[in-house]
Every structure is written in C-alpha cells, then in structure tokens.
C-alpha cells in the first residue's frame, strides 16, 4: 500500500494550513481574500468553493499525470480547473442563490487563482493520488481558514454582526468592510500569524516569510 513509502499525510495537510498558507504565508490570491470577506458567510462559502476546486483539481490531475503530454500540460490543467470551477459555479447558483447573487462573479475568478494552478503544476502532476488529495485538502483548508478569520473580524468590526446576526448593537466601524479595511485586516492578521509562528513554533528563523 501507499503507506509503505512513508508519506506523512499529516505533514502534507498541515503544510497548506500553516507553513505554506496561501494567504498568510505565500500572499497569493489576495483579490478574493479582500473582495469577498466583508461578511463571514461569504468568506466561508468562498473558502469551501476553493477547497472543493483545489481537491478535485489535484485529484484529477494526479490521476492523469502519466497520460498528459508534457507539451500541452498547462492548457490541460487550465481546462480541468475551469471545468471544476464551472461545476462549483452551477451548484452554488442552484443551492445558495442569495449568496451567489453577491459573489457569483468571484466564483468564476477561481479559474485564475495562482494557488490552484501552482499546486497542480508543482505537486499534483508529480505525485500519486492520495498525497495529491491530501495536499489539496491542506491547501484548501488553509485558504478556508484564512478567509474565515479575515471575514470574521471584518464583519464583526464593520457591521457588528456575524453570519448576518447582530452581535454588537452599536455603530460599527464602517472602514472594516470597505476595501481599505480588507487590506488592513489581511496585513494585521498576516503579521499576527507570522509572529506566532516565529515566537512559538520556532520555524527556523523564518527568513522566507514576512
């Protein structure tokens, strides 16, 4: 079985969440991180959509890795990615029409996420199915986690509510849900997580992250 090769699945999954978190560490795909995180519900659903696409794309590409001709691998990757994104898009339009009305335009933009194509090229096209799935799950959960945290604070501060329910009954700080607030939230959280990383996890001086 695959275990005989000693693949550490825990490592693969946590890699995407902590060490190579798309948003907090690699600073990729910041457009959706700012655009859709003005509410917790949007952030979580966008994160779930990306998680689904990332896992399916990684699995599909890993499945086909020996079959795809090297010369046309990138166009094929793009076809696979856009196929899964379209599936996600149609399912969300049918299942959650209210949310889709607000963020439907961004779902289609998942096609252009650097992080998804990067994992397909760097990992899934070189590894077996199980590790590729684990990598996709890790990367996806990392993204979902980042979007959840960002949108949690932005909605709480900017609207005084969570998931649409009012929590703080006071005049909210509107800037948090404006684009500028998005940049601030991402920056502050990025700094915070890197600080934790350096302070407690002691990831060897972490020169590569800032």
């Amino acid at each position, binding site marked *: 079985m695959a275990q005989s090769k000693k693949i550490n699945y825990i490592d693969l999954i946590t890699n995407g969440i902590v060490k190579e978190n798309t948003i907090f560490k690699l600073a990729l795909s910041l457009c959706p991180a700012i*655009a859709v995180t003005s509410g917790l519900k949007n952030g979580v659903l966008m994160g779930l959509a990306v998680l689904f696409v990332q896992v399916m794309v990684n699995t599909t590409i890993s499945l*086909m890795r020996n*079959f*795809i*001709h090297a*010369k*046309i691998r990138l166009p*094929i990757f793009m*076809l*696979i990615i856009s*196929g899964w994104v*379209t*599936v996600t898009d*149609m*399912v969300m*339009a*049918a*299942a959650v*029409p209210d949310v889709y*009305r607000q963020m439907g*335009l*961004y779902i289609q*933009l998942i096609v252009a996420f650097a992080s998804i194509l990067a994992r397909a090229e760097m990992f899934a096209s070189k590894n077996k199915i199980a590790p590729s799935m684990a990598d996709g799950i890790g990367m996806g959960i990392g993204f979902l986690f980042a979007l959840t945290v960002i949108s949690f604070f932005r909605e709480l501060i900017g609207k005084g509510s969570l998931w649409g329910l009012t929590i703080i009954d006071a005049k909210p700080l509107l800037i948090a849900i404006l684009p500028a607030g998005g940049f601030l939230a991402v920056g502050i959280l990025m700094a915070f997580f890197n600080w934790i990383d350096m302070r407690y996890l002691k990831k060897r001086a972490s020169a590569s992250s800032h």
Partner: protein
Amino acid sequence: MTSKDIIKITINLVIVYLIGGAILAAVYAKTSPIMFKNAKIAKEKALKTLIPEADIIEKIGDWTIHKKSAEYFIAKKGDETIGYIIQSFGKGYSSYINVLIAVDKEIKVQKIDILSHAETPGLGDEIEKDEFKNQFRGKGIENIKLVKKETTEYIQAITGVTISCRAVTDDAVKNGLDFLTKTLKGGAENGTIEKD
C-alpha cells in the same frame, strides 16, 4: 514534434473535452431547473418591491430586445391601473444586463432594478448601486440620456463604468420605455403581444 506526439496530444485533448463535457452536461441538467426556479422567485420578489402599493401585478405580454424575450406587466390597485413594469436588456461590456423598469401611468420612471448581469466585478457592478439607479426616478423618455458631466436633468455616468451605464440607460431603459409608449398607444410595431 513527431507524428506520435501529435497523435498523443490529440487523444489527450479529445478525452479531456469528452469527459469534461459529460460532467458539465450532467451537472447542468441537475442544476438548471433549480436555477430557473430561483430566477423566477427573484423576479417575482423584485416586481413586488418595484411597485409596493400595487395589489396585483399581472403579465400583459412579451416583447423582444437583442433577440431575447422579455415580459411586461401591469400594476393595479383595486380596479385602477397605477403603473407598468417592463423587463428589458442592455448590451453591456461583457454581458446583457437584465433590467426591470417600473413606470407610472404617464410612463415616467418610478424605479429600476438590475436583475442580473455579468459585468466586471468591482467596476461594472457599480450599476447596482442606488446612487445610480435612483437617478432614473421621475424621468420621462426624453430625459433618459447618459451624459458624462454633472447633471440632474439627464442620467450621469459613473466614472470608469460608462459602457455598463450606457447599456442600462440608452439601451435597456430607453428602448423599454419606447416600446411601452408605442404599445400602450395602440400600435405594437416592435414586439409581439399575447394578451390573455
């Protein structure tokens, strides 16, 4: 590149297209009826909010614009006609913009609503903002004209979003009002009317 490569690439692409196409078709078959129903519910809701004081909003016919079929409605309070609602399309930057226009008996715009579009996120979707939509209130067809300067007489374009604004103003709303005026005055040259 040898002929072997070419054959392999061709087989690659054919298989990816076939499998991808099959998956998309299956998902579309499952989701499109639900999407259709959702769109219908959204439209009914939108109609209600456009003329909230109406008791009944009844469809009175269909018309075509940009080869798309659109509907128009009559709004009644009791037995009295208080206005009309017409659906219209405008050709925007990257999509057809689906607009509902509510007018009073004199065909002056009461309110417009953008039902759906696929314009550039963060830019073209500014047309959904109230500051833009509210400009239409109280304007007759002669004042439906997009200008780039500051204006209260006409409709002012949003900076950077001129194409989408023009699609809503000079295309969707203007043609909608034009058709409604002609139809209500007896002649219906532009569309097909099915009274029931």
